[in-house]
């Protein structure tokens, strides 16, 4: 079981959290302006990197807040957790899509 550091509450066991998919995917402000292909890409296309990956988590059985985390998909090691809206920390570059 993973130990996850909620930016608001500290280290908590994995069972208190819910995974929320890839991070830093902003909903387009004008969806109607997008082509079908662009919209489909926003809806469905996700990176699946081998290595550091920025993803959303929610401390659903704790403070209830969403936050972002960079996790190495190879080792399951968390490199950083940070509040929603904050930029991805330096030194946690994206892994290679695999």
């Amino acid at each position, binding site marked *: *079981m993973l*130990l996850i550091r909620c930016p608001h509450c500290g280290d908590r066991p994995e069972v208190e959290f819910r995974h929320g998919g890839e991070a830093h995917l902003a909903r387009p402000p004008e*969806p109607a302006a997008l082509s079908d292909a662009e*919209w*489909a890409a926003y*809806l469905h296309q996700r990176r699946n990197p081998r290595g550091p990956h920025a993803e*959303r988590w929610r401390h659903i059985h704790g403070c*209830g807040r969403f936050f972002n985390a960079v996790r190495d998909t190879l080792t399951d*090691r968390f490199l950083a957790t940070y509040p929603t*809206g904050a930029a991805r920390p330096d030194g946690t570059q994206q892994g290679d899509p695999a």
Partner: protein
Amino acid sequence: MSAPFRTHQGGRPDRARTLRFTFDGRTYDGHPGDTLASALLAHGVHLTGRSFKYHRPRGILSAGPEEPNALVELDAGPGRREPNSRATMVPLRDGLLARSQNRWPSLAWDAGALTGAAAALLPAGFYYKTFMGPGRAWEKLYEPLIRRMAGLGRAPAEADPDRYAQRYAHCDVLVVGAGPAGLAAALAAARGGARVILCDEQMEMGGSLLSQPGTRIAGLPGWEWLEVALAELRALKVRLLPRTTAFSYGLQNMVSLAELPERAEGPRERLWMVRAARVVLATGAIERPLPFSGNDRPGVMLADAARVYALRYGVLAGHRAAVLAAHDSGYEAAFALQAAGMEIAAILDPRAAPPADLLAEATGRGIRVLAGQGVARSLGGRRVTGLISTGGERIGCDLLLMAGGWTPSVHLFSQARGALRWDAARDAYLPDTAPEAVLCAGACQGSYGLGACLAEGHAAGGGHGAAPGAQPGREPSGMPTAQAVAGAAKAPMAFVDFQNDVQAKDIALAVREGFRSIEHVKRYTTNGMATDQGKTSNMVGLAIAAATLGQEIPAVGLTRYRHPVTPTGFGGLAGRHRGDLFEPIRRAPLHGWAEAEGALFEPVAQWRRARAFPRAGEDLHAAVLRECRAVRQAAGIFDASTLGKIEVVGPDAAEFLERLYVNPWKKLAPGRCRYGIMLREDGFVTDDGVVGRMAADRFHVTTTTGGAARVLHMMEDYLQTEFPELRVWLTSTTEQWAVIALQGPKARTILEPFVEGLDISAASFPHMSVAACRVMGIPARLFRVSFTGELGFEVNVAPDQAPALWRALMRAGAPHGLTPYGTEAMHVLRAEKGYIIVSQETDGTVTPDDAGLSWAVGKAKRDFVGKRSLARPEMRRRDRPQLVGLLPRGTVPQEGAQILASPGARMAEGHVTSAYWSPALDRPIALGLLAGGRERMGQTVYATVMGGAPIAMEVTDPVFLDKAGERVNA
């Protein structure tokens, strides 16, 4: 009773005390400190079971957790029957009752053994190749037959009466294995001030020290040092967990341990989930058997196991042993056994030139060594009586020992995602690097000398200065297993995996048939797939596969070690999460009333809802018809408390709902309600419910019963991550409001006298109104809404006030025919009106238009979640499945039945989503999703019937009753 194979003295068991136990109906005795296996061997009992596939007689192979053969059933009374217990790991206790498995009528005379006679006809993949057809023969004939023939223990049928515990623990250092390396690690870590947990799967700590009484550590005899070390660990507050198996290594050093507490009271098993800053693995090594014909006969045993039985338990596994020693440790075992009083018939060493020092010692002891020779086959029936050497010599013996070298126990290290490297000198895979904070010490990384084990443990525990001293011991060597297995593939009944009855020739056959990956060879032959996970068979099987492929072992690879490394009881894993505690049951505030009324309940999400209230003599169908008629003709009362409720509050609340729901909200006046539909971003309906505007900045949102948590999560997601600028607060209020629905033409008449501060007449409180008021003096939110098509109200009050109000309404309504109704009548009533139920009429692929709900979508809205997806060409096709009404002829179709255009059509064009007998129409009705359905009104389609003729149905509008809505607006 005398135990003829017990030595005169020595060993760990407490000979002053006697325990009696029963195996297959015969009573034996033993001592505390014995295992079931050692106590049986003390009485000369080797035959303990029949094998899985061929029903061959099997005996005790090992002295430890790797045991593949001696699996017995322990019976401690109803619900306490435990199959597949390894006799080598069962501590003996007084009154223990054990039985052999997989035999009929008896262990000695087993009818299934005929399979063994036909073994030549049962090669690897036999089942895949043979039991292929015809169609249903597998489930009707083959599978039941194979299941009866092949199999291990019987699972208990009764409920388990015992208690199981689970515990989380944290420590600085977790040491797995309390042999010399683990003890040295725990001592070093604890002396340095670390919080330490030390666990070991045996009933007694000490590991290999327990079978080395003659050794010396730090100037003390080995067993004395062990006492001193354990006493010091206790004084240092180290948590000592004997009888505790580390069976799973999870992420971030979370290791799961299964403890079998010794106390009779208390939990039967305890699951420990230990989070350790550092883990030291001192898990030892397992001896390899060797494949030759009849290497599975009772009396054929691992050489070190025989040494352990003699020196730890004071039990000689035979009177006269022959030793097949492809590794030096076979000599050590032979010398130790001879010293303990066993006759050594011969040592057969397949190496042409065994080490000179061992040869010299054997000669000095008068033991004959046959260099360059192996065992061609064992002799005997249900017990070994001798062997034929590869040189053709016949040697008599009642014990045949195998020393095939050692396999370090790297299972847990591998689960820690540690990489393994092949070490040719030690002929084994050894731990290399791991991403977790884990260190190995001793035999599990190929260090077999006592001095090395102590030094490595001391270092792994973070020790300073010198480790506890011991003689370094000689560096052992052996014939590589890939050489030692040569020729085995041609030998009949040369077993590799004893538990799954896999022979050397099966592995060679798999390779010949084209399987190259060791993972595929494993699955095709089932080598290493039994409950022992191949602890004795993996490396031997790998060596045979490599030899057959003409490759080196590291080129062939290694299979993965699954969780659990060692079989673990289900009880500990389940802990207290069983019975009533398996999953919480949510009971609405009026549950007690419904229960007292004799309601039938059904599970809806975690709730239990009253399905119907049958009266004496009524079945469910009759009750539902009566309840429906009451609602249409008079009035019904319904507990709608399980509806999800979310309070959406804030200056931007309307703007937030505008973005989350398809409907327009900004112009909805306070005091009014609207039926809301929520989509996912992909355009499909995910939830629906009535939303009431309580004030300009406050909405009372209802969701489906099952969707409450999902909807709140989705709302929070958008609010926190996409629209953080909106000033909105979301609160789940599902359990803050009990909801009593009054539905039917008399609903207003019954309710009106209770309402204070509100005129609920049709003119001033029309359909889809909401207001705060008092009902029977209780603060309430009163909705005028309907899910039945009748004049209806939903009274929201605090849950603790709800039962009193419910009873008062029942009393006041009785003269008017007020009738409680359940979810089944609710389903029928709403279907007569064509109201959908999300997840019944929808399945995650239904758009608002598909469901006939386009009218609800705010056409002028620039955006809402899911809107862009609705514009995709696929979503606008005219032949999408659309909600229609169906008028079945004669009988009610099955919900989920496929809809066909003609009775014999091969292609379905939709499916029935809801189907009932309608009391209002006095005929069957159904709702369904039908391709292009709205353009097919009046057509006849057909619902499939399992094993019967399809039911003809006329396509019609989904609103079957009161299309103008006069009743609901009354």
